């Protein structure tokens, strides 16, 4: 008994006084766990004697992790570094509240100002600094399909939404398949952002977020009108479907197309065992050829991090070519650096990396790049209202009201 107590006391003390550790807070577990672990292993090799505390809170795209992080930050107990979607999810939430350290000097010192493309740097910066180190890039506007099935049903990949609604959709309805499969609320929002970028163009889309285009302007309302027609070509039972279940329907021939981020490539190649290019294929979502709607995971440095120096060393690894080439092939994403080693990626990764370097880059709404948490959270409500009443004018005015509540564009 006494021994156990002594042991316990030692453990508690060593945890409390451990000088040399670094706590990394993320939502990467399960399928994504190995990529993070490989990165941590590299860190431990480079910095022997520093213990890495891997604080993971599971839950897709960090919904649970963000709630836990909020509690810790409000309680004055920040981790040394935490995972966050690059862009406004960090800036509109933590940077405006003055809880993050400016990383501009790290970026300069490491030469990252030229290693990362300007479109991405714009997303993670404000006029007061650069706020996080991106570790990977995913693309949001990808249309997935099975080439053999399209041939069977006699359709081709639509160039824009107008073609999809007027030609592709009726043909597929006649063939008895769902033209476009959607899933639960966030996947519908995901589709919406592809439609919005296609209809408004990259400049119009950026305008929504910098305040130069109002959410209840005629062009923004037109997005909802197009979206209404697109929704008429989708499955009715979407509410209960996860994105994987939606992707399954494309793979097994119940549906023709699906718009999903490029994590779907990993799912179809690894979990479903399909061959990229023949078993499944991809194109930019209709009307967004040449535009790359991106989202990035990144790590930031909260003010008051207990092990600041170790955290900076972590960020250095996260942003390095070495770290990113370890992490991304395992995660199924591409490196945000322009000099990454493309030989390590599969067919989809190579194609995405080529597009990333040549396309116009804009940020994703659903995945945290362009709007703060207040807007992201309640945009689901706007979407639900639209799904129920299909009233484009009301959706546009609700979105405008939400933008006001969330201080978007000022």
């Amino acid at each position, binding site marked *: 008994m006494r021994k156990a107590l002594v042991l316990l006391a030692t453990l508690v003390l060593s945890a409390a006084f451990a000088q040399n550790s670094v706590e990394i807070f993320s939502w990467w577990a399960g399928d994504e766990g190995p990529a993070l672990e490989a990165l941590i292993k590299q860190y431990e090799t480079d910095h022997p004697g520093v213990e890495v505390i891997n604080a993971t809170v599971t839950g897709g795209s960090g919904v649970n992790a*963000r709630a836990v992080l909020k509690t810790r930050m409000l309680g004055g107990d920040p981790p040394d570094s935490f995972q966050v979607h690059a862009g406004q999810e960090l800036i509109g939430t933590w940077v405006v509240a003055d809880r993050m350290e400016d990383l501009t000097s790290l970026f300069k010192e490491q030469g990252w100002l030229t290693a990362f493309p300007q479109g991405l740097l714009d997303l993670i910066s404000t006029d007061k600094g650069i706020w996080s180190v991106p570790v990977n890039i995913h693309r949001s506007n990808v249309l997935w399909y099975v080439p053999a099935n399209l041939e069977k049903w006699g359709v081709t990949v639509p160039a824009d939404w107008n073609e999809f609604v007027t030609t592709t959709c009726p043909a597929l309805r006649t063939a008895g398949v769902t033209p476009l499969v959607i899933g639960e609320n966030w996947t519908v929002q995901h589709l919406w952002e592809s439609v919005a970028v296609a209809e408004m163009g990259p400049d119009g889309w950026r305008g929504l977020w910098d305040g130069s285009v109002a959410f209840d302007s005629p062009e923004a309302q037109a997005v909802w009108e197009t979206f209404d027609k697109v929704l008429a070509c989708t499955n009715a039972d979407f509410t209960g479907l996860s994105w994987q279940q939606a992707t399954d329907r494309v793979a097994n021939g119940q549906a023709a197309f699906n718009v999903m981020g490029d994590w779907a490539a990993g799912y179809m190649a690894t979990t479903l065992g399909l061959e990229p290019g023949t078993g499944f294929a991809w194109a930019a979502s209709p009307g967004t050829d040449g535009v790359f709607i991106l989202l990035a995971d990144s790590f930031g440095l909260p003010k008051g991090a207990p092990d600041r120096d170790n955290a900076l060393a972590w960020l250095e690894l996260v942003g390095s070519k070495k770290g990113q080439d370890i992490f991304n092939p395992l995660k199924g994403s591409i490196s945000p650096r322009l000099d990454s080693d493309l030989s390590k990626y599969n067919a989809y990764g190579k194609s995405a990396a080529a597009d990333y370097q040549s396309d116009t880059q804009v940020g994703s709404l659903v995945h945290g790049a362009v709007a703060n948490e207040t807007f992201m959270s309640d945009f689901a409500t706007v979407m639900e209202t639209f799904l129920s009443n299909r009233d484009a004018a009301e959706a546009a005015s609700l979105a405008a009201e939400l933008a006001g509540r969330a201080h978007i564009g000022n």
Partner: protein
Amino acid sequence: MKLHGDRVTAFLMLLPSLILLAIFVYGFIGRTAYVSTTDWGSNPAQALALEPQLEPVGAANYVGLFTSRFNARFRQDLVNTFFFTLFFLVGCLGLGLGLAILLDQRVRGEAVFRTIFLFPFALAFIVTGTIWRWMLQPQGGLNVLPTLVGLPKLELPWLTTRQQVWRFDWRHLPAYLAVIVALVLLIFAWRAWRNQRRGRGATLGVVALALGVWGGFGAPGLTFLPYSELHGFNVAFIGIVLAAVWQMSGYTMALYLAGLRGVPEELREAARSDGASEWQLYRHVILPLLGPITLSAMIILGHISLKIFDLIWAMAGSDNAVTDVPALLMYLRTFRGNQFAEGAAIAMVLLVMVAAVIVPYLWTSLRSEVRR
């Protein structure tokens, strides 16, 4: 007055829990009430600051919940809660009582049935929710059950439907409420009149009539909203009611069974020898004796249904506004949207709703204890 030693001991023994209650229940209620009167969250620069500067805004958050266009979702949530509570109570009480009466017929293997019926109650709502989400998938579960006996597959959409029935205009709510209250008052007036308390009966009757007439004309002078806003019963809730009733009716059965066993055999015998049929025996002897049980069951089930969160989270997800309730919205607004003050206001509305169910019950039970 001399303090008895055991009184002091008793007080000291109670003190720790009194202090903990004062801080962790009433202190936090007070804190939430305070936060709900501030602007915490409306300015992103202050929402998550280390030392947020909060500005008092009075009742603005409450006014926003009940009048802003953006919060139509909250008002629909209240309607959802009303219908959910109604059907959940009716389902649990009806099924529970039915099962209890059946088990009370001295069936063979009663203990086995009792355990089976009570079993769902032992599960957490999150487990029930997950199981029922699978059962109610449109492509499988309950919908394929008929194929086992060679019938065609059902095409019920269950949780995925967006259909809404019994729609009414939120603007007319005061009128509806006035008419309902008037009807209740009329019943009280009639009772008072019958019990020889003519004065009170007449007063109540006049008040009821006035209220009824005012409500009947559409409650002029009181409008919540400047525009028309339709709300109604979301059909998707049928699946959720089904799961909740499945979980809680066994518990209600146990309550009723205890009550039925408490009815003395002599009373039944007496009724039977007076020539009462079985139906009359239940209608006039046993059911009235079960009144207090029904009341307790309604209180317990009622506050569960007002607070329901995990079941819906597991069954329909958090973003599905069709099956939303105030507790879910409170979580989303507070912890995802960082609208702390608005979340606190929703929490206070919930507290008032639960208190409206619990406090009268505590009041009457305390009063009867004092009388004893």
